[in-house]
């Protein structure tokens, strides 16, 4: 071995076969390897693994949170949509109600008006009848007075009134007949 080394490296410049260096190198390197593999790498490996697990957990959690947030958002959107629908419905109802109310009020007003007109008409009729009756009585009185003055004596008032009334009735009937005749003629 020593001869081989001497032949390979005659000047000694390569420092082949430096036994002390080789010996201590092997010892040192083996101890270093042992220490590193036993005491250094496991904690680093565990730390990295733990952090990896932690990051994975965080990512999972973040994803879960995001999903939850998305659900919540959807829920809120749905609620808003619902509220909007509700609002629309309420508005619609209110409009319908108002419409109905207006219709009802209009109808009531019309009915009221009709009633008032009816009443007025009845009143007018009544007034007219009263007026006719009054005119009749006035006419009868005037006729009796005139007749008394013409005849120069009083006449039986009741008899007279009956006669006048009959005459007026006849007149009325005649007038009615004439209008009916007109009507028939026009028809």
């Amino acid at each position, binding site marked *: 071995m020593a001869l081989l080394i001497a032949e390979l490296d005659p000047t000694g410049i390569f420092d082949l076969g430096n036994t*002390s260096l080789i010996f201590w190198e092997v010892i040192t*390197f083996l101890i270093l390897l042992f220490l*590193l*593999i036993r005491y*250094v790498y496991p904690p680093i490996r565990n730390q990295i693994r733990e952090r990896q697990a932690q990051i994975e957990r965080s990512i999972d959690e973040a994803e879960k949170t995001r999903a939850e947030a998305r659900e919540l958002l959807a829920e809120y959107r749905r609620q808003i949509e619902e509220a909007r629908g509700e609002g629309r419905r309420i508005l619609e109802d209110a409009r319908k109600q108002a419409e109905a109310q207006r219709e009802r009020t209009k109808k009531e007003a019309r009915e009221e008006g009709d009633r008032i007109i009816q009443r007025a008409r009845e009143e007018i009729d009544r007034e007219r009848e009263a007026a006719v009756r009054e005119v009749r009585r006035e006419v009868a009185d005037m006729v009796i007075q005139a007749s008394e003055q013409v005849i120069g004596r009083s006449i039986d008032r009741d008899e007279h009134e009956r006669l006048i009334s009959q005459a007026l009735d006849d007149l009325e009937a005649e007038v009615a007949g004439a209008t009916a005749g007109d009507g028939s003629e026009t028809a």
Partner: protein
Amino acid sequence: MRAMLAQIGQNELREKILHTFEAARHAWHIPLHIGPIDISINKSIWFLWIGAAVTFLILFVGSRLLKDRPGAYQVIVEELYGFGRNLGGQVGEEGRKWFPYTLSLFVFILVLNFIGLIPNTYPVTANISFTLVLALLTFILTQYEGFRRNGAGTYLKSFAPPGLPLKPLMVPFMWGIEVLGEFTKPLTLGMRLYANILAGHLIIYVFLGLILYFGSVVAIISVPLSVVFYAFEIFVAILQAYIFAILTQVYIELAMFREDH
């Protein structure tokens, strides 16, 4: 200057600077022997130990200061660990189990390379004994994994590539070449690291030595140049440590998956 150089003499100069090993053998010396084998502690051993201690401390302190929210130091150590982890699995995922070895090797060589760059230290990785022994360890592990995982028969047979023409002639020939290649792997591995680190130091030495030969005017050129090479040496230190580590990993994995390739 020239006179001084002449005084030192060629042999002495070699001893003093180029031949760092000789100089280191007698510095900080504690003589020790196991029978006829010399295991004296000298400057190179001291720096070997310093390198190992620094390697261990960097990683050990890093592994004891672990927090959930890492600081810069922890990030560096963890990145180093992650980088080492990714050294594994070059050929097959099963090879990843060897990454603690490769990672230790990487950090150890890197630290020794860097220590060697500090003036008046000893560049342990520029010693061929050192690099060849590391390469030899790689070789032993490679063959161990090759035999263990494939079985002796399959592993030895796998050296002859399949589909050769002229089988009776070519198979033994190629087998021989492949086996030879298996032995050159650790040799090149050790030589590469040794030569690169030594060459870096020599280039710096040569640039500065030019001042001794041609006078201090040359310093205008050679000092900046040696500074540039010094910076380049830092890069080489990292690169060579990486190459050594990754080739170790690849060799081991290639032996493991020899059958499949």
